[in-house]
């Protein structure tokens, strides 16, 4: 009863003119960044983060949450109508959504995407609300060794899911963890890697790393290959900017596809580091394997749209669970929302439920209202959203860079921050160029201090006995999972490598 009252309080708090306006702005911005060429959801949320400094923590969280929720839908429209996936998560929609559009069923394809986004959004919201508090109660019982293990598991997941070379991902993570050590150490007050410079003694703000690497770095990467004049909207035939919903009976018939997509999205979303993109591809793969209409997939089957879109949407609810319950982000966008919490001096995790439960309830309310708002906006704003595609990428990129500058200056109006941010822009560009993934670098910078604090506190509390991490059952199990996660791609690659070699190792020929 108390829980429901708290949840009701969250809705009451959000239903003020100011908060509703912030929610609407977040929805529109989220849709725009998902559609705009040269911007992605995570980059968009990163660029919005500096503008939340002067806001209260509530409106800041509403804005970023609304952007995150809306950003998982906008790209579906352009993927279906113009074969332009706004986000990597929308790529599976090209295979069936665009195929339906070519058959003259674009409106119905959009309808299926919207229904999937709505159903998965509401179900994953219920899952998030039901699971977060019990998980936080469990997390409250964890001690520092277990907490260190959980953070290590989160960092390992990011590396495991990195996509490119795991060695490069680990190097990127190490660099991120090292960046987090710059400045005055929290336990002894020792100066580390600061060279006596006052702005480095304060530490390197993770925001500067995020804004530089994702914002300026990505602009430089795109500039190196030449900006597009404008997003091409040459679809076959003139697309009609309308959505037509499937019949209720058709939706019910597809309940198994919905269930598979939603469960996949929730499970993948909960795993730290894996977000909407991974969910979308995995769900499409599962549908292709086990779906009734598996053979029709890729030729314009609504099942392909429902599987991918419901999983991508459900991953949002899943990703919020570890963030709110343990302070571990489940996706790139929730890492930025974690940053917003930290910027306002709040550490998400079990303590938030005890100290500021109204913030958790506010996020719960924001996710549900943003899901509803996203569907309304997705239905009515197709034409203006598609118009945005005509903006030249060079102009958008110029504004992105200016937003990065403001983001760097906004917190302390300090010029060294501007230099540091720009330097990380160059680092981001070089990382992209030499195939070092950025996500581990950024997550290492954010989670580094949490990992180090828990590690150091454990070592101090247990008389420098590092074996404690492996002798306590929970931390040992979580660390074993992390190590297994890291080792699995190596084992898989080694297995594939040796299977390719001819039997008997006769690889040399005279």
């Amino acid at each position, binding site marked *: 009863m108390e829980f429901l009252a708290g949840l009701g309080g969250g809705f009451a708090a959000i239903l003020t003119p100011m908060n509703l306006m912030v929610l609407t702005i977040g929805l529109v911005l989220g849709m725009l960044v998902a559609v705009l060429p040269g911007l992605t959801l995570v980059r968009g949320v990163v660029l919005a983060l500096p503008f939340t400094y002067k806001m209260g923590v509530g409106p800041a969280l509403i804005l970023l949450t609304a952007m995150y929720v809306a950003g998982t839908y906008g790209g579906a429209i352009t993927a279906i109508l113009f074969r332009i996936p706004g986000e990597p998560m929308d790529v599976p929609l090209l295979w069936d959504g665009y195929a339906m559009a070519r058959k003259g069923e674009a409106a119905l394809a959009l309808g299926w995407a919207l229904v999937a986004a709505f159903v998965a959004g509401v179900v994953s919201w219920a899952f998030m609300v039901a699971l977060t508090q019990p998980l936080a109660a469990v997390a409250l019982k964890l001690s520092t060794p277990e907490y260190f293990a959980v953070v290590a598991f989160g960092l390992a997941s990011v590396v495991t899911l990195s996509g490119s070379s795991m060695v490069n991902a680990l190097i990127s993570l190490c660099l991120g963890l090292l960046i987090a050590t710059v400045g005055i150490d929290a336990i002894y007050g020792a100066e580390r890697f600061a060279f006596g410079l006052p702005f480095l003694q304060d530490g390197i703000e993770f925001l500067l790393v995020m804004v530089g690497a994702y914002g300026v770095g990505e602009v430089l990467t795109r*500039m190196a290959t030449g900006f597009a004049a404008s997003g091409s909207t040459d679809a076959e035939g003139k697309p009609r900017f309308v959505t037509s919903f499937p019949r209720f009976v058709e939706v019910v018939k597809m309940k198994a596809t919905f269930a598979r997509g939603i469960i996949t999205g929730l499970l993948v979303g909960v795993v730290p580091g894996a977000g909407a993109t991974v969910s979308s591809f995995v769900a499409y793969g599962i549908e292709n394997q086990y779906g009734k209409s598996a053979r029709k997939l890729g030729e314009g089957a609504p099942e392909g749209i429902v599987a991918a879109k419901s999983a991508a949407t459900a991953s949002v609810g899943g990703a919020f669970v570890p963030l709110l319950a343990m302070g571990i982000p489940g996706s790139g966008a929730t890492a930025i929302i974690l940053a917003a919490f930290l910027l306002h001096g709040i550490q998400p995790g079990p303590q938030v439920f005890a100290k500021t439960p109204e913030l958790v309830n506010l996020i719960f309310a924001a996710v549900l209202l943003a899901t509803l708002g996203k569907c309304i906006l997705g239905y009515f704003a197709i034409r203006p959203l598609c118009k945005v595609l005509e903006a030249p990428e060079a102009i958008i990129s*110029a504004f992105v860079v200016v937003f990065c500058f403001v983001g760097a200056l906004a917190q302390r109006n300090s010029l060294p921050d501007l230099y540091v941010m720009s330097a990380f822009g160059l680092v981001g560009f070089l990382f992209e160029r030499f195939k070092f993934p950025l996500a581990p670098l950024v997550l290492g910078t954010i989670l580094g201090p949490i990992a180090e604090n828990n590690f150091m506190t454990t070592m101090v509390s247990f008389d420098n006995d590092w074996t404690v991490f492996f002798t306590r059952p929970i931390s040992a199990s979580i660390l074993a999972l992390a190590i297994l996660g890291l080792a699995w791609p190596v084992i898989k690659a080694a297995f594939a490598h040796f299977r390719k070699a001819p039997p008997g190792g006769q690889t040399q020929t005279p």
Partner: protein
Amino acid sequence: MRVIPHAVMLAVACWLYWLATRIDAETGGRISPAVWPKAIIVFMGLLCAYEIVKRLLVKSEFVAKGLVTSMESGEDKPGERFGMLFAGIGLIAAFIFTVPWIGFFLATAIFLAVFPWAGGLRKPVVCVAVSLVGTVVLAVVFLKVAYISLPLGEGPFRALSLGLLRVLGVT
């Protein structure tokens, strides 16, 4: 050539380790604040060394990839335009080094006009219009909505920035 990134990272790791050995703190027998960064640096150095050895000596095709590799786009990247890239880096550098003197608004107006041009948009009217409208809109958003304090510049440029603020009604 293909080991340069990892060789640079290894050199950085060695330098950072040397710096870490100079971290000084009175710990009273407890764990030193240098342990955590040292452990990370050693791990990073080993990873770099492994990659260098693998690429130089073993020449193995063995690569442990992340679990989502199959999702990455296999499409060919277009040709690189280093001239455009260096122009972009130069413009960003020019912005950050001139902004303390000419102020945020003038620097932004110039940047918004020149950057799209350097990025290949050969429409001077569009570039100038975007620059002027964009600067005014950003000034309103940053100063009147988000209340962000931004550099106003020195001497006459400061007067110019203050004049713009007066026009916008920012006191």
